[in-house]
């Protein structure tokens, strides 16, 4: 399973860099929250342009940071899933539960991220519509994919058990 080992190596390396990036994001978030005057700075985060940093922008920024933390945790669950696969623990309850968790977390984080951003865009009268593949669609699609995969693995586990009990 060379491809699996390659994927696991990429994921492990990405995990280290994402953790580092998230630490920097938290520091930046604290800087935004506790700075008295940062009105000279303009920010563009994920296509959202922040002209000024008021209380609503700060709340939105904290929310975005929390969502990224949640996504980081989801990525950690995916890392655990790959570890199970490398140990040949494929059709077990733990793997099925991990996939279900990943699916649910992705769907939840997509809503937690998109709804406040959309509400903010309405209030700031700066609506950005994306009719193509947006982050929302990708996260929902990926989440549903993992949920479907967990159901398929559940069926496979039952079939494996039946096969093992066939003499």
């Amino acid at each position: 399973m060379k491809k699996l080992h390659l994927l696991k190596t990429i994921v492990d390396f990405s995990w280290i860099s994402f953790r580092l990036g998230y630490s920097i994001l938290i520091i930046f978030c604290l800087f935004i929250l506790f700075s008295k005057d940062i009105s000279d700075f303009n920010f563009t985060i994920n296509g959202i342009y922040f002209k000024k940093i008021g209380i609503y922008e700060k709340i939105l920024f904290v929310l975005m940071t929390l969502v990224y933390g949640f996504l980081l945790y989801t990525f950690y669950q995916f890392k655990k899933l790959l570890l199970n696969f490398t140990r040949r623990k494929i059709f077990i309850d733990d793997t099925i539960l991990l996939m279900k968790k990943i699916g649910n977390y992705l769907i939840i984080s997509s809503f937690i991220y998109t709804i406040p951003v959309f509400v903010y865009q309405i209030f700031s009268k700066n609506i950005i519509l994306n009719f193509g593949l947006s982050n929302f669609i990708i996260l929902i699609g990926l989440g549903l994919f993992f949920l479907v995969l967990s159901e398929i693995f559940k069926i496979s586990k039952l079939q494996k058990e039946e096969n093992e009990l066939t003499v």
Partner: protein
Amino acid sequence: MSIIVNLDVMLAKRKMRSMELAEKIGISVVNLSLLKTGKAKAIRFSTLEAICKALECTPADILEYREI
């Protein structure tokens, strides 16, 4: 389960041990034990044929249906 496997009875009648039967029909002792204890979910026709040949009996001698 409603299907009862009377393998123990047939083994006693033919004065054969489980290990001996398992070797004769080419399955592991563990799998034979699954069959004896009623934990098996299914049996292949090839396995049933081999058991009947080894014990010189019919499937009805080994398998019984009982309403539970």
